[in-house]
């Protein structure tokens, strides 16, 4: 995933871009077979083990999901750990350190 964070005072604006097909289970391939559903269901954010963010998502989120989150009370050096999980159980973790 790609994470961009901007810290202004103690407010961090974080943009997440997840590379994921977000298959809704309603699309068909060229042979006419239904492509099975596979989409991101949960994205979480933690700072030093404390949860600061969570979104649950359904099949209606666009391919390669983009999410913007705003966190307050943050400081330079804070490391935010993000993790997504999809409907097949696949996960990816990445983090950003505020500067």
């Amino acid at each position, binding site marked *: 995933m790609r994470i961009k964070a901007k810290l202004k005072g103690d407010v961090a604006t974080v943009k997440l871009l997840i590379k994921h097909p977000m298959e809704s289970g309603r699309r068909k391939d060229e042979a006419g077979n239904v492509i099975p559903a596979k989409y991101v269901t949960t994205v979480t954010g933690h700072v030093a083990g404390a949860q600061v963010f969570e979104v649950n998502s359904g099949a209606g989120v666009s391919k390669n999901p983009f999410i913007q989150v*705003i966190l307050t009370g943050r400081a330079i050096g804070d490391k935010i750990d993000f993790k997504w999980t999809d409907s097949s159980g696949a996960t990816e973790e990445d983090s950003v350190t505020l500067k």
Partner: protein
Amino acid sequence: MNLTRRGMLKRVIAGSAIALVPFGAFAEWMEASFKADSYSSALTAMGSEGAVASDKVTLKAPEIAENGAVVPIQVSSTLENIESISLLVEKNPTPLTAQFKMFPGLKPDFKIRVRMGETSKVIAVVKAGGKSYTAESEVKVTIGGCGG
């Protein structure tokens, strides 16, 4: 790794805090809500039937989306004691699209891109203090984003 006593303590405390909340209310993906196939059944599954419109919920969506596959949405709220903020696309096969949970230090102001199969209302549902509040916006879609 640089192991100091303070660092170790922090890790132990953080670790035990996570262990104390084993997949509680936070970690659950609300399958019944996300798989509900109509706006009203999604609202019921979310426990938000009887939601009322509120000017303390702001939904920003384009009036016209040329490409239904990528519709940028922004939702924010000035309500107190927010528990969650959900986005629903009324005419999508499964209307509930995203549900943001609230945490201390998280601003109730999110952006996300959603798919829309056809022209539809987009509804934000904010749960706060045990009640549900909504704001809605109609988005005209010229090319749908859900078909093959």
